[in-house]
């Protein structure tokens, strides 16, 4: 493990944590502009987090140790996953561990913690939100794993660094399986982050909410931790999509300061482009009925399955 690898790893994690609320703020600001409002500054999520962290948390009388422990567990798992997804450089210190299945597992762990926290107090809304989140995950996780199967067949590894490097070389070529896996991953990303067709991140309307319903009973620094976790998860997913499907410009392993700066610029541009795409998509589409979401994610699962089928077909041919 070289000093460069450790340095890039630390800078990457710091950037992920620092930029995540900014990214959420940017998406909110872009959506507001698209709808003809002025919108709060992109710094607003950071201000909210600072305010919440100062406030004294209030816990329900029926709250157990779960309500206190789970925010830390969820944020730790999400941070660990965020440290594994390459951002501006490949060959970071944790790159040998950056397995896509591990990332899926860490995300599942944080979702598990969130559902536990939602059910801990015992209110109806929390239970409802947790049940919905888990039933969506039952479709989203297999779709994610099947997409990973496609990448693993094409790149010969489930390691995110190796997949990114193989795709940046252009070795696998243009494959319909990649297009299918991309569509599946986009649907999973929307569901995982509670974005528009699946859940509306801007409302507190009881009938439609999933993510917000689980956080109704949290307050103070615990709420700050949950908000940070959600922001970090969005950051992680956009970085993951960029690392897999836009692997250009990322600094290869063992590059110098110039390569890192170039990679940083490319990463920021990619994240910005994805944020704009997300804001435009969310402004253009209406929220789906909750009971249609499993259908939507089931379609994603089938597309990923189809991608894997075609890969078996074409690798048998070639």
């Amino acid at each position: 493990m070289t000093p460069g690898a450790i340095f890039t790893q630390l800078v990457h994690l710091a950037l992920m944590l620092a930029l995540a609320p900014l990214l959420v703020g940017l998406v909110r600001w872009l959506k507001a502009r698209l709808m003809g409002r002025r919108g709060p500054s992109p710094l607003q999520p950071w201000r909210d987090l600072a305010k919440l962290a100062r406030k004294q948390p209030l816990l329900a009388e029926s709250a157990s140790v779960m309500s206190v422990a789970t925010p830390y567990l969820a944020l730790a798992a999400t941070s660990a996953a965020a440290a594994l997804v390459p951002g501006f450089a490949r060959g970071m210190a944790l790159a040998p561990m950056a397995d896509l299945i591990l990332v899926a597992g860490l995300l599942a762990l944080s979702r598990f913690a969130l559902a536990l926290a939602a059910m801990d107090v015992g209110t109806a809304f929390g239970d409802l939100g947790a049940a919905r989140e888990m039933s969506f995950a039952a479709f989203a996780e297999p779709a994610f794993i099947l997409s990973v199967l496609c990448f693993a067949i094409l790149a010969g590894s489930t390691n995110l660094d190796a997949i990114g490097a193989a795709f940046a070389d252009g070795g696998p070529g243009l494959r319909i399986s990649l297009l299918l896996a991309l569509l599946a991953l986009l649907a999973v990303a929307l569901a995982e982050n509670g974005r528009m067709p699946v859940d509306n991140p801007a409302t507190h309307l009881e009938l439609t909410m999933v993510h917000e319903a689980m956080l109704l009973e949290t307050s103070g620094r615990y709420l700050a931790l949950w908000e940070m976790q959600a922001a970090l998860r969005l950051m992680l997913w956009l970085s993951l999509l960029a690392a897999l499907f836009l692997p250009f410009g990322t600094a290869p392993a063992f590059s110098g300061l110039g390569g890192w700066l170039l990679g940083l610029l490319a990463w920021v541009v990619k994240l910005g482009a994805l944020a704009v795409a997300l804001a435009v998509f969310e402004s253009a589409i209406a929220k789906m009925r909750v009971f249609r979401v499993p259908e939507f994610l089931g379609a994603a699962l089938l597309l990923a399955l189809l991608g894997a089928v075609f890969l078996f077909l074409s690798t048998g041919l070639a």
Partner: protein
Amino acid sequence: MGFGQLPFDMAHLLAGGVLLLSFVLLYQRRVTALIGALAAQGAVLAMAVAWQGWVLDVPALYVTALAALLAKAVAIPLGLRLLVRRFGLRRAVETAIGIGPGMIMGVGLVALAILVVLPATQGAGALVREGLAFAMSVMLLGMLMMITRRHAIGQVVGLLSLENGLVLAAAGARGLPLVVELATAALVVALAAVAGFFTLRLRDDFAGLDLGLLHHHRGESAPPGEGPP
């Protein structure tokens, strides 16, 4: 020719795009979105055929591509849209089986197409084999669409999508003459016209179908509009 070379990659991607749009057709619930997806499928089909013409160096395929673009991506969708607007059909697609089971059956049909095409085309080039597998899948999905839609528009869209699969197969298998293709297209247009005619007749004849009017003949005294107690 294999993966990593642009001619093969593009042909693979475009033919796969046609298949993907077949799944989009299966997933749609609204009539207007259905027609939009059909137009998109026609456009991607035209691109796939034109690319095949360039790769295989068959200028006749450019004519097919142009015909596909004009007819399937512009004329037919516009006509269908006009029909929908004129007769006020703007409503949800009625499906005989749910969207989810339909998609699962679709994936099963794709697997069936692969299982059928691959042993039958032993020895042919990878491009032809894969193209035929895609085309066969699109045809089967078109048939599935015709079976699972209750509404005539949905069935016509399924038929047109089936014909898209035929054109895709014809473009992949070198040597299918243009005459045969045109004849197939004309046949499908004729079928669509007949189907459309029957739809309109049925609509005209049964537009105000009210079972309440029958109560009188069945000896029930309730006036029309009020059901039996």
